[in-house]
């Protein structure tokens, strides 16, 4: 996988979406990794899926491109697998795994980021399905997706059971996918708005039962907060390796940088962060695979790995000094790709709340 990943053109400065590149991801098994073989996937569990994404990232595949694949698989394909009707699974999963379809995750709203319990998007029951009305933002793969997994309020008084999940076709009348947002990182994953205006979704595209939106979303987040963040383990591995090489080669004050204690200490901290996050992430995946409630481990893994990714990218910047500001060295791109990791899939402070809850506070 590491070798194969090098073959995927990174080319993230050209942020256009390319179907051929998407098919390459499918060919490597990334788009359907955690889907049973009978549905066209690779049949891997969470831990093996994480190892696959980590290897692709460590091998050099572009972080934004892998993020696009992970958003597709964990936030869209997994909910279809776990919650769609059998005939809907049969209709969608093989094409989603093979890269013939791109899926976008449409949860976040302009007024609903961390607070996913108050969705302004409404789904109104009509004959044979629902009518969706509302605006979704930061939809990963939004501008290019063929299908969207989205969430809408079906019962404003329903509390935890007030929202419902749907898989909506892009060509549905009343669905308008916006242009790519200009982001600072993860350029190869386009994100944009999706607007629903009396957009009809048939009953067989509901995921789970009415009122199970939060359940569907939280289940998908267990996968995303663990397996997706394996991408950032691979990214850190690459950065640490580059820094090791750099500090052994570059000399200042008549010594190798590696022989300067502040530099060596910084490197030790980078390694510690990487390996601590890695152990937590593997443990979280093992909890998913064992059928345990993984919430506590998943929250700790997401928090540790995302914060480590930011800290280590910034540390790499310090180690590379002036060169870190030159685009040709790629360090500034790694910083830009790491920064959103502490925000998406639930912010670091949300993860801390989940950990506190897991501790029984």
């Amino acid at each position: 996988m590491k070798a194969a990943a090098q073959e995927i053109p990174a080319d993230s400065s050209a942020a256009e979406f390319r179907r051929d590149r998407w098919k390459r991801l499918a060919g490597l098994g990334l788009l359907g990794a955690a889907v049973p073989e009978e549905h066209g996937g690779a049949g891997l569990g969470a831990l093996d899926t994480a190892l696959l994404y980590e290897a692709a990232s460590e091998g050099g595949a572009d972080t934004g491109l892998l993020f696009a694949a992970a958003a597709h698989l964990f936030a869209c394909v997994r909910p279809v697998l776990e919650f769609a009707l059998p005939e809907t699974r049969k209709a969608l999963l093989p094409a989603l795994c093979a890269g013939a379809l791109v899926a976008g995750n449409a949860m976040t709203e302009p007024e609903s980021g961390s607070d996913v319990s108050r969705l302004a998007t409404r789904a109104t029951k009509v004959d044979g399905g629902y009518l969706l009305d509302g605006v979704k933002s930061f939809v990963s793969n939004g501008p290019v997706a063929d299908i969207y997994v989205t969430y809408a309020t079906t019962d404003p008084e329903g509390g935890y059971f007030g929202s419902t999940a749907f898989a909506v076709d892009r060509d549905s009348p009343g669905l308008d996918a916006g242009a790519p947002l200009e982001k600072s990182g993860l350029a190869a994953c386009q994100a944009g708005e999706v607007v629903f205006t009396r957009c009809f979704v048939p009953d067989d595209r509901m995921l789970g039962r009415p009122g199970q939106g939060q359940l569907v979303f939280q289940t998908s987040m267990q996968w995303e907060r663990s397996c997706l963040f394996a991408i950032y383990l691979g990214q850190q591995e690459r950065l640490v390796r580059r820094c090791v090489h750099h500090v052994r080669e570059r000399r200042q004050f008549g010594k190798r940088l590696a022989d300067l204690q502040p530099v060596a200490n910084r490197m030790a901290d980078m390694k510690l962060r990487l390996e601590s996050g890695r152990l937590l992430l593997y443990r979280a995946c093992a909890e998913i695979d064992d059928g345990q409630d993984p919430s506590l481990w998943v929250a700790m893994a997401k928090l540790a790995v995302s914060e480590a990714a930011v800290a280590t990218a910034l540390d790499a910047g310090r180690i590379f000094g002036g060169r870190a500001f030159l685009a040709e060295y790629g360090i500034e791109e790694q910083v830009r790709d790491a920064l959103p990791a502490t925000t998406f899939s639930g912010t670091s402070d949300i993860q801390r709340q989940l950990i506190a809850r897991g501790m029984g506070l």
Partner: protein
Amino acid sequence: MTDLDRAVLLDQLLRYVREELEAGVPADLITPDSPLLEMGVLDSVRTARLLAHIRTAYDVRVPPVHMTGEHFRTPSTITDLILLLRSQAASL
């Protein structure tokens, strides 16, 4: 698994919702038929805590198919759900 008397279970559950769930609702408003979802008692955070409590106190894991509003509407319906899932587990 010893069988639980429904009245005892309902009583324990009411005490948990009144004293442990900290929904900011006066205890006397929590009755067997209180609409917990409409009252805002069971939001996502407190539902997760309730599920964890049901798991540890009664050794019952609520499978996705039973995670619906009808089962979590009131303390009574939650009690029935726990009894149902315990009886299913016992008959395995």
